[in-house]
Each structure stands twice: as structure tokens, then as C-alpha cells.
């Protein structure tokens, strides 16, 4: 009797274990089967393409406008909005695991990050050479988005920089628009000092953790933290050294209002605290958001470094669309090629509806680009920016922009506290070489 009780108990326990194990197994096979079912469906017939992008009002909206312009009834695309950080994490974990399950067909990647993906995961992306003509795009946009002789991205928005300034403050300091066109950063600092003396407003708002302005200065002279072959280029980088000197001079003379995040940055010019915003073209909608300042803003070309070959055009940010090497790649590439890659009318809608300026050169002759913006004293803001865009010196952002910049950010703190510029550059060079062999 007791023996049987024991046996029953054992059997019961074993059965429970078996069932739960089986359940776990069958669950996972179900899931695999599901995703396997999805994959072929994507490649056949009704082509359901997925795209990942950040910023609902900008990049996601741009993809949706493109979808409206795309004349193909068989094509259907789902745009999934993800934060940029999430996209970077998911791509990295997904691609490094070696399975392409759950990856999108089209993904937006920031230009400064692109090489790190292209070189880390060489077979994960699909070359787009056959789907559009890269020569139609701003030259500076091509080197970050190509690798090993192939064009891997369809270049999207530009971060061409402009020197947005408050006409009333600058007038009070004794400057007209002509005085601010095609100046150097040294002259910019002189202007900033006059503005500070006459209006008591700092010239710019900067986040000490974000060295964007250094990159803007450097790129105007065609230089970067690394050279084209990936060598760390800090110690003997004359443009960078000059940019750092300018940066320190601005800090030391109270020409800068410090901010610690994006919303404070926006508040600093929307509230009228600072006199200018030297930044990427994408900042224009944020400036316009403060309606009470309509007519008080104007736009000059970004200052240049006082170095041979430097131009009054630079870039800050910008991203491009990539196609992953999975089923549906041809459809996705064709979609990008026929919209972002060649449709002038589509670019007019982009400007009209979301204020996005692409890097497709023929688009600038379109009608929407000629718009005279009352907010900026009837200046043809979009047209001017798109003209400067063509002059932006191309630089190779390489793979380590963010890594090197963290090293330099730390050294810049030392520099502001009195460490000599030569030591700052030499130490950054050594650290970067150790870290990114």
C-alpha cells in the first residue's frame, strides 16, 4: 500500500516535470515557427516592409510622406518609432548575435555612427549602388555612408550649419547682417564680446558635455579626430587646437551660458537669454517655435576657422537610411531609391510639411525651397542652407568619433582649469591610441 503511494507520488512529480519541460519546448518551437512564417510572407507578394526611425515629427514623418509619394500598390511599409539609443542597442545586440530575426528592413543610422556599424557587421547591410545616383547628393554625405567602395545608405537629412542670430541684440551691439557674413570664429568672438558689453547677453548656450561646436569648427577646415585611414589625429591637429583655443576664450570671457540638457538649450534661446545659435539647420523649427520673436532672427553662414582652405560651411549631425541584408531588401531599396533617391517633388513636401532639408542637390531648385520666411526677416532660409550644404567639406567620421570625444570632453575640463593646450592634445592622443588600437 505504502509502496504504491510512493510510486504514485514519483510518477506524479515526474509527469509534472515532463509536462512543464514539454510546454517550455513547444512554446519556443511555436515562436520559431511563427517567425519563420512571417519571413517568407515579407518577401513574397504583399511585401510588408518594416522601418525603424526616431523622432515622430521628423524622420518617421519623412518616411510616411515618402510612402505617400511611392507609386507602388504592392508595397506596404510599417514605420516603427524607436528612440535612437534603442535602435543602436537593438541593432548591436541583434547583429552581433548573428541572427537577423526581428531586424527591420530599413533603419535610420546617424552618420557619425555609421562606419562603426558598417565595419563591425560587414555582411549585414545591403549595398544601394544600383538604386540611385550618389552624385546627386551633397559630397560630404557620401564618405560616412559608404564602405569598401560601396554606397550603403541613402543619404537623408543635412545638418548643414548656420549662424542664427538675434537681429535686435546684434544691432544694439552695432552690427548689421553684412558684418556677420563669412566671418572667422575669431571675429565671431569679438562680436560676442561686444554683444556681452552692450546687451549683457551671452552669445551662445553650450553644454560642456557636448563638443558639437568643436566638430563644427573642425569640419569647416576639413579636419576630424581621425584621418581617412583611421589614424587618431589629435596631437598635430591644427584646426582642433585652434577650435579648442576659441572654445576656452568663449568660456573664459563669459560669452557662454551653460546648459546641461536639450530642453535647457532650447529654453536659452526661446527665452531670449542668448544672442545667437550657431547650429545645424534642424534647429530652425525650434527657434520658430517661439512666436513672439518673429522677425527678430536672421541667418548668416557659419563662421570658419582662420586656416587655409577653411570655408564658411560645416555640418552638425544628420542621418541616413540603410537597408538590411534580409528578405525584402530589393523592395526596400527600390522604395528608397524612387523616393529619397530621385523625387524632387517629394523633397518639396518634406520642406513644406516638416521642414526637413534633404541632401538631394536637385531638390533645391524646387519651388518650396524658395520660400521667404517671415520669421527670419523674409530670408530664403531653406535655399541658403541648401546652398551652403553643397560646400560642406567632406570628412571621414571614422569609427570612433564618440569614443574619442568622451576622452576629449574629459581633457577639455582640464584645459579649462589651466592645463596647457599641448598637454591636453598630447594626452588625448595617447589615451585615444590606447583605447582604439
Amino acid at each position: 500500500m505504502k509502496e504504491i503511494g510512493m510510486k504514485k507520488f514519483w510518477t506524479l512529480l515526474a509527469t509534472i516535470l515532463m509536462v512543464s519541460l514539454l510546454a517550455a519546448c513547444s512554446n519556443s518551437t511555436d515562436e520559431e515557427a511563427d517567425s519563420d512564417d512571417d519571413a517568407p510572407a515579407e518577401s513574397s507578394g504583399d511585401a510588408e516592409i518594416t522601418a525603424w526611425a526616431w523622432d515622430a515629427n521628423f524622420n518617421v514623418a519623412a518616411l510616411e510622406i515618402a510612402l505617400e509619394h511611392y507609386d507602388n500598390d504592392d508595397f506596404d511599409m510599417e514605420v516603427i518609432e524607436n528612440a535612437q539609443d534603442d535602435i543602436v542597442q537593438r541593432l548591436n545586440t541583434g547583429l552581433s548575435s548573428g541572427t537577423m530575426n526581428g531586424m527591420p528592413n530599413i533603419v535610420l543610422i546617424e552618420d557619425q555612427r555609421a562606419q562603426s556599424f558598417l565595419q563591425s557587421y560587414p555582411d549585414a547591410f545591403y549595398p544601394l549602388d544600383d538604386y540611385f545616383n550618389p552624385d546627386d547628393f551633397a559630397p560630404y554625405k557620401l564618405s560616412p555612408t559608404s564602405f569598401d567602395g560601396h554606397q550603403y545608405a541613402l543619404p537623408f537629412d543635412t545638418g548643414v550649419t548656420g549662424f542664427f542670430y538675434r537681429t535686435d541684440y546684434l544691432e544694439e551691439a552695432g552690427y548689421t547682417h553684412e558684418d556677420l557674413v563669412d566671418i572667422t570664429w575669431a571675429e565671431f568672438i569679438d562680436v560676442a564680446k561686444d554683444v556681452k558689453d552692450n546687451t549683457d547677453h551671452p552669445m551662445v548656450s553650450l553644454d560642456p558635455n557636448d563638443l558639437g561646436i568643436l566638430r563644427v569648427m573642425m569640419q569647416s577646415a576639413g579636419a576630424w579626430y581621425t584621418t581617412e585611414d583611421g589614424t587618431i589625429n589629435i596631437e598635430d591637429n591644427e584646426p582642433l587646437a585652434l577650435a579648442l583655443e576659441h572654445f576656452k576664450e568663449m568660456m573664459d570671457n563669459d560669452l557662454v551660458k551653460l546648459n546641461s540638457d536639450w530642453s535647457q538649450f532650447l529654453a536659452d534661446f526661446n527665452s531670449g537669454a542668448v544672442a545667437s545659435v550657431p547650429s545645424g539647420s534642424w534647429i530652425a523649427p525650434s527657434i520658430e517655435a517661439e512666436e513672439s520673436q518673429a522677425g527678430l532672427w536672421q541667418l548668416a553662414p557659419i563662421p570658419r576657422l582662420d586656416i587655409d582652405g577653411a570655408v564658411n560651411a560645416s555640418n552638425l549631425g544628420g542621418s541616413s537610411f540603410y537597408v538590411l541584408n534580409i528578405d525584402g531588401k530589393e523592395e526596400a531599396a527600390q522604395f528608397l531609391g524612387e523616393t529619397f533617391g530621385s523625387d524632387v517633388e517629394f523633397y518639396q513636401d518634406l520642406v513644406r510639411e516638416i521642414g526637413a532639408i534633404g541632401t538631394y542637390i536637385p531638390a533645391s531648385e524646387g519651388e518650396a525651397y524658395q520660400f521667404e520666411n517671415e520669421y527670419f526677416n523674409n530670408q530664403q532660409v531653406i535655399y541658403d542652407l541648401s546652398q551652403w550644404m553643397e560646400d560642406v567639406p567632406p570628412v571621414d567620421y571614422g569609427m570612433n568619433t564618440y569614443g574619442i570625444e568622451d576622452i576629449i570632453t574629459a581633457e577639455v575640463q582640464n584645459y579649462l582649469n589651466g592645463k596647457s593646450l599641448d598637454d591636453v592634445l598630447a594626452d588625448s592622443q595617447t589615451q585615444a591610441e590606447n583605447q582604439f588600437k
Partner: protein
Amino acid sequence: MHLSPEAFIQIWRGIVMSEHVETVKQTSFLKKIRKSYIGWLFILLSMIGISLFYFYPMIQAFLLSLQSGMGASLEYVGLDNYVRLFNDPTFIAALTNTVLYLLVQVPAMIILALVFSVLLNDPTLKFRGFFRTAIFLPAVTSLVAYAVIFKYLFSGDGLVNEFLLSMNLISQPLNWLSDPTLAKITIIIAITWRWTGYNMIFYLSALQNVDKSMYEAAKIDGASAIQQFFFITIPLLKPIILFTSIVSTIGTLQLFDEVMNITSGGPGNATLSISMYIYNLSFEYTPDFGYAATVSYVVLLLVVVLSFIQFRVAGDRD
């Protein structure tokens, strides 16, 4: 599973009887195993789970820490990554920051939590429940949400500066987030606010178990409140203090959310924590998961060593 009470009793008797029978026989090793079979079965599921989701990834992470390379193209480099640690100023900065947080924040928080718990344990205190809840409440807030709020409190024109300015304690706003020292202080204030109440609850519950007669006896012997605190409360709470300091140490070593959201490691890398450096190595820079795994093994090593020291120092033999 549903067993009727009768069946359950029968099974129970079966176990007891079979044990009885076996003890009568000579017990061999095999029999011993067989005897404890049932116990093993009970823990089998969780053992499989732990092996699968803890030990297997740990071994994989160790193997990963011996590799280096970009993204998916990793190759074995032996102990190169571990050597690299010593020449990596960013890692050393992250380690120094983390150790600093540890040395300043954990003791400060433990002491604060102890003081609060003793104050709130006083039966004559009015609104005890309210105070307890108020101090514990930070522990239920989301890490990210509170970090973002702290960022705004301590920003240039944030509430903290406004308050200090209006009290005439400072003449111009302090750069809480962009000054290297103040940024560290901000992080420490934030973590302390978030976790003090959590630790206090442990002490409060332990204090419930302290026999009141001890305090009465001490009072009769003429011990002051402070003497009672040091000679009765602290010794009796020792195991709990040990527990909370280990948990807090481990928590601080894994500090991520606050640094990420309040300062993102800056200015420079003045507030960078080890966990945030691991994140940067994996997702912010060109991914080197091998080296990131190496850095994470340093955290593991630190946790083990520090916990060991704490056990030793606390010296509980039971």
C-alpha cells in the same frame, strides 16, 4: 497539483516509514542519495533555471571577456583585455568614481537610515506612520523618473539654486551638473535620497524584535539614549547592518540609471560609473563586447571581494 488530504497523509507516512525502514538497514552511500532524492527533485527546477540563466551566461561572459574585436568579428586574445584595463584611463576614472561613491555614500546612507529608524521606532512619536511612509516612498519611485527630476532640481535655474539664492546662501547659481565635484555630490545626494528609506525599513523591522526589557534595564542602570543606541541597538542590529551594507555596496557598484540620466557621466568623465562605461563600450562607441565583458568581470570581482571583507570585518561566526 491537487492531492486530497488522505492521499497527502499516505504519502507522508510512506516517506516516514521508508526512512524508518532504511535507517534500520545498513545505509550505504547510494541509499543516502536515494533518501535525499526527493529533496533534490524539489530544488531541481530552480537549479536548472539558475544554471541556465545565471551560470551559463556567466561562463559565456567569461569566454567573451577573453575575446576582442568590433561587433560580431570577435577573436580570442587571451588576457589582453585584462591587461588593457590597467592602461585605460577611462576605466580607472570610472573605477575611482565608483569607489568614491561607495566610500562616501554607503556609510552616510547606512548611518542616516539607522538614525531615522531609531527615531521612528520611538512609540511616543506622533504621526509615525506618516513619517515612515514619507521616508520609504522614494524607494518605490522609478529610477529613471526620479533621476530626471533630480536633474531638473539641480540644473542651473533649478529649484535647488533658486532656494539657495533666495536664502542668500550663494550669490550666483552653482553649476551642480557641470562642475566635476558638485556633479559627484549631486549623484550622491540623489542615491542617498532614493535608498535611505529602503534600508530604514530593514532596521525598523529588526527593531521590532529587540526585547523592550533590555532598554528598560539599561534605563534603570542609568544609560543615556546615546549609550542605549551604541551598546544595545547597534550590536543587536549587526546582522542587518551587514546585510544592508552588502546589498548597498553591490547596488552602488552597479550604479547606472542615475549617472546616465542626471549627468550622462559628465562633465568629462567626472561622474562616470563602471556600469555606464560598460554601456558606452557596448553601445555608445564602436561595440567591443569582449572588453565590455572584461569590465563587467571587474564588477563581479569587486562584489565578491568587498562582500568577503564585510563578512570578515563584521566577524559574525554564526
